[in-house]
Every structure is written in structure tokens, then in C-alpha cells.
């Protein structure tokens, strides 16, 4: 049927364009990290050689520099490394001599467990709090509940992690304070990691819900005789959740960078620990690898959102042509068909997240 083929080909075009844009973002992330790490002044080789370079002969220094390709002009380095990245070769760690891909590769799994659990906690707790805070009737109760997210945002996660250790590891020996040997060891770190993100989700969603509850269609629903729960969940939440979903990429990025602190506090292996060590040792290739990894995670998360969001928000069209639904023979009458990009209004999300 002509209608469906148009639909399918436009979806394919859309996916293809989003993929293309993602690749450009990744390339740009590579360029930015290259500029920051290689173009700015630093002397990693000297650090490797003992920080002082006085007991290393100039020839040995030159040899080390050449070995890591740091003697070439910047532009050449840029393309050489880019070529390497495209082949899967992210360079060699200056501190350990191992390939960066290996260093990062082995750290991914424990971090994924930690970040995955933290993601779940953050979303469930944050969203749950927002829904509850906007639903309860009592003014003092709702004020109290709405006051919790700003608290969560203000608490430094490293401090929170240490407090958790103190209360639930030392005072009440419930959970291990460090390491990754047991499932129980996952609990405290993921709560610590989830706090700032969960608080941010709660803030955004409660603001979103408050706005939605002031919209006119809520009155229409109430005028139909719907009870509070129905109005809150089926009407308000359904609309308020949409901007929150566009935040997924930011959440993923925030969780990933949060592991740097959390894995340090809880002495767990993972991407965060690798990053902390690499920064300490000024191990540039590893840091660049981490940056690319994070950018990839962000891009993948955004791609997922871009694919899912149009299914949730019928106002978003993927193409210029008006939507055709099944046997619709009547042309769409919309005065202003919305043809926004399906990661809409990241600005409003950023504003509300603040």
C-alpha cells in the first residue's frame, strides 16, 4: 500500500539521518578531546619517566616521545589517531603500556552493573517521589516532599557515599564498605550514585507535573467526573513524562561521570577508577578513550530516545508529510503540524533540570 511504504521509507530515512548525526557527534567529540588533551600544554612522558626528567637522558626522553607519537606535528597526530580509532585502536596507555581498549574493556562490566542498578533506583525513586509529591493533598506534606529533591541535588555524592558507609557499614554492619565481591556490595554504591540523578529526575518531573496539572485538559478530565488518581496518572503524568524522557542521554552521562567518585569512595573496579587513575597519572590516551566511551554511551542513549519518543508523542512527525493512519482517507486538518526534531526542547529540559 502506498501509504505504508511512504511510512517505512520515511522511517528509514529518519533513522539513517539520526545515525549520521550521531557519527558526526562522535567525530566531534574525538576532535574536542584531541584539542584538549594534545593541544594544551602538558608533558606526560616526563611524568612517566619519573616526573622530574633530570635523571633521564635526553635521548631516552626523545625515544619515549617518539614511541608514543608525541613528536609529530599536531595535525598529523590528529589524523593518525583518528585512523586508529576507526580501526578500533585507541592508543596505548602511557602509564601501563597496555592498549587502551583493553584497559577500558575490562572495566566496563563492573561499571555497567553499578550504573545499571543506579539508573533503576534513580528513575523509580525520582519518578515515584515526583508523582507522590504532586498527588498528596496536605499542603505541609507536599511541601515537605517537594523539598527533598533540592536537598538531594545539593548533597555531594562523595560525601553521601561516605555517610552511607559510616551508617550502614560501620554503625550497622549491613553492607560491605568496599570491593565488588558480592551482590550486597552493589547496594550502597548504587544508592550513592543514584542520589544526584534521582534528585534531578524528581525535580524535573515534579515541575513538569505541576505544569501539566495546570493545563486546561485537566479541567476537562475533572469535568468528566474522573477521580484524582485517574486525572493524575492518565492525563497529567502521561504528558509530563515526555520531557523527562528526553533527559535520558543526560542521565546516562551523569551516571557515568558519577562513577569516578563512587568507585573511588567504595574502592570498586570500573571505568570510574580507571579514569581517576588515568587523570592522576596524566595518562592522556586513556582519558581520551574514556571521553569517547562516554560520548558513545550518550549518543546511543539519545538514539534510543529518538526512536522511542515519536511513539509516545503523536505530535512529533518524522517527515513533512502529514501522518496517515490506517485507512484514513481524510487529510489531516492540522493548522500547524509539528515537525520538530524528536529530541525536542533540550533547552527546556536543561532549564527545568536546574
Amino acid at each position, binding site marked *: 500500500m502506498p501509504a505504508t511504504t511512504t511510512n517505512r521509507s520515511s522511517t528509514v530515512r529518519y533513522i539513517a539521518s539520526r545515525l549520521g548525526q550521531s557519527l558526526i557527534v562522535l567525530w566531534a567529540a574525538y576532535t574536542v578531546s584531541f584539542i584538549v588533551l594534545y593541544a594544551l600544554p602538558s608533558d606526560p612522558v616526563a611524568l612517566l619517566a619519573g616526573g622530574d626528567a633530570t635523571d633521564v637522558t635526553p635521548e631516552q626522553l626523545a625515544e619515549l616521545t617518539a614511541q608514543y607519537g608525541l613528536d609529530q606535528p599536531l595535525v598529523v597526530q590528529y589524523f593518525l589517531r583518528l585512523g586508529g580509532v576507526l580501526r578500533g585502536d585507541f592508543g596505548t596507555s602511557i602509564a601501563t603500556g597496555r592498549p587502551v581498549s583493553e584497559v577500558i574493556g575490562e572495566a566496563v562490566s563492573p561499571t555497567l552493573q553499578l550504573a545499571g542498578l543506579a539508573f533503576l533506583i534513580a528513575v523509580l525513586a525520582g519518578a515515584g517521589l515526583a508523582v507522590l509529591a504532586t498527588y498528596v493533598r496536605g499542603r505541609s506534606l507536599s511541601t515537605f516532599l517537594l523539598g527533598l529533591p533540592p536537598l538531594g541535588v545539593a548533597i555531594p555524592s*562523595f560525601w553521601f557515599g561516605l555517610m552511607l558507609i559510616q551508617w550502614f557499614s560501620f554503625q550497622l554492619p549491613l553492607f560491605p564498605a568496599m570491593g565488588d565481591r558480592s551482590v550486597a556490595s552493589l547496594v550502597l554504591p548504587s544508592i550513592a550514585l543514584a542520589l544526584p540523578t534521582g534528585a534531578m529526575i524528581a525535580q524535573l518531573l515534579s515541575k513538569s507535573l505541576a505544569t501539566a496539572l495546570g493545563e486546561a485538559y485537566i479541567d476537562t478530565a475533572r469535568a468528566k467526573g474522573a477521580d484524582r488518581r485517574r486525572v493524575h496518572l492518565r492525563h497529567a503524568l502521561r504528558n509530563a513524562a515526555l520531557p523527562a524522557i528526553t533527559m535520558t542521554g543526560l542521565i546516562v552521562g551523569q551516571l557515568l561521570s558519577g562513577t569516578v567518585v563512587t568507585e573511588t569512595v567504595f574502592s570498586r573496579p570500573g571505568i570510574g577508577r580507571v579514569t581517576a587513575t588515568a587523570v592522576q597519572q596524566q595518562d592522556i590516551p586513556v582519558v581520551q578513550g574514556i571521553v569517547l566511551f562516554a560520548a558513545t554511551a550518550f549518543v546511543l542513549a539519545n538514539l534510543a530516545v529518538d526512536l522511542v519518543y515519536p511513539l509516545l508523542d503523536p505530535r512529533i512527525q518524522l517527515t513533512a508529510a502529514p501522518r496517515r493512519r490506517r485507512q484514513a482517507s481524510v487529510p489531516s486538518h492540522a493548522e500547524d503540524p509539528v515537525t520538530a526534531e524528536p529530541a525536542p526542547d533540550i533547552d527546556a529540559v536543561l532549564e527545568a533540570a536546574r
Partner: protein
Amino acid sequence: MSETTALLPGTAQHADDGFGATAGDRFQDAVADRASRSAARPTWTSRFRWFARRPAAALALLWLLVVLVAALWPSVIAPGDPLAGVPAENLQGPSAAHWFGTDQIGRDLFTRVVHGTSLTISAASIAVVVGLVVGSVLGLVSGFAGGRTDAVIMRAADVLLAIPGLLLSLAIITALGFGTVNVAIAVGIASVASVSRIMRSEVIKVRTSAYIEAARASGNGWLRVLLRHVLPNSTGPVIVLGVLELGGAILAVSALSFLGYGAPAPAPEWGALVSGGRDYLRGAWWLTTLPGLTIALTVLAANRLARGLDSEGTGRR
């Protein structure tokens, strides 16, 4: 309902195309007319009453002022020496003599926290200034110029946003080396992208307003429109953003110094203090708890103040 909800703060008005008034505007007019015939200009007493009605924001401001004093004149609040310790008095809990207790070499923790304020706050302030200045200019240019310039700048901001803030700061630290100033610059640069996006959306909101069209129709050239009409209406949000960013910058700066990338020991940066107390977590809880609490309270105060300023601004609009 459409008329009445508009009177209440924080409720959404009906959608319009930006050029059409809503019933809410008219209702607000009519009721406001009845309630008070002439609105007085804000006087000192009415400003005071503004604060009195918002105790939380007032408290936040008060705390921030205390922090400011501690940053500028630490000896006024804590006259001791943050670096000198009396080994015999080490690891003592909070008491009348030592409000925050002492650390492992007998240094008074309260004094150290107070003297660390200037390190942390100045780093955070530099970060905010860097982020705000660069980000606002980019956002202003982008939002005002539109077209290709806008597209290019926003693409760049998108890319920067793909790299999480803390990681970007870490990359910059890796390149620049450690120390308070480098931390400040790193945090500042990492916030440029989001500041520019927020500024741009504010500018676009103003630029598409009816009174901007009126200013053009009145014969103003684009420069004059920018200076006289767009900028004054966009600066309010910048101030709010600045205060918010301060809170975020304090968190980022202390996280970086916790990880050890800030000023070297024995500098009493707040993050470093928390980190220093880690080894004594089991016994001397005050070494980690109290500096961290200070960080949390300060960030909370900054955020609260920003929210108070923000609602004041939108209320007036």
C-alpha cells in the same frame, strides 16, 4: 477556570501564539484593578516584606553572606591558624573548645573549614564567571543572530553536551595539571555548553516577543534593539543562572579536590578535607561529616536563592 487560574503564581496560561492575549490576562487586569488602584514602586519596606514572606530564601541569603565573609576575612570568624596543629589534641570530637573537633594532627577542623572557604568559593566563582561570560556571549549571539550562526554554535554546544561535565573537566585537568585555578577553569569550561543553550532559549523568547517587533517598527536598528530591548530583558535569567551555577560549581570543585586534583595538602579545600577524613571514618566521624555538611548547606542555599529569584522574575512577567 481559564480566567481564574492565571491569577495564581506558577499556573500555566492558555497557549497562544505569543501575539494574542489570553483571557487570563484580562481577568488578572480586572481583579487587580479592583484590588488596588495604584501600584506603588518598590520601597525598602516592601522589599523587606518580600523577604519576610519568603523565610527560606532569606535564610539562604543570610548563610551565603556568612560564607562570603568567611571567604574574604576568615580570621574574623576563625582567628586560629589552619595549618598549625597541637598533636596532643588530635582526633577530639566537637566540643566547646573545638566546634568541629580536631583532625589527626590536632588541627582545629572549624578553623580549617573556614579558611578553606576562600579556596573553594574563589575557585567556584572563577568557574561561574568563565562559564557565564563565555556561555552567555555564545548564547546571546546564537539566539539573536539566528540562521547559520545559530546552527553552528548550537551544533558545537550539542557536541560538548555529549561529554558529561565532570569528564570534560577531568580531561582539561589532565591537560593543564592540578591546582585550584586549573580546577576552576576546567569546571568553568565544562559548563559553557549548557549555559549557552539556556541563554539562547531566553534570548529567543525575548526576540520573538511582540515588543521587539514594535521596536523594529518604531525604527530601531538591530543594534539598538539588542542593546535597549533584548539585553535588559535577558539579564534577569542570567543572574538566576549564575547563582544556580555557583551551587553546581561548588559541587564540582569540591568533587575534584576530593579526588585530589585541587590544591595540594595541607590546603584546607572543602573536598580535600572530606577526603582527608576518609581514613578515620570509623572513629572520627566529624572529619568527613562536618565539612561535607558545609558543602551541602552552601549549595542548598545557592539553589534556594536562585529559585527565589527566579519565581520573582517570572511572577513579574
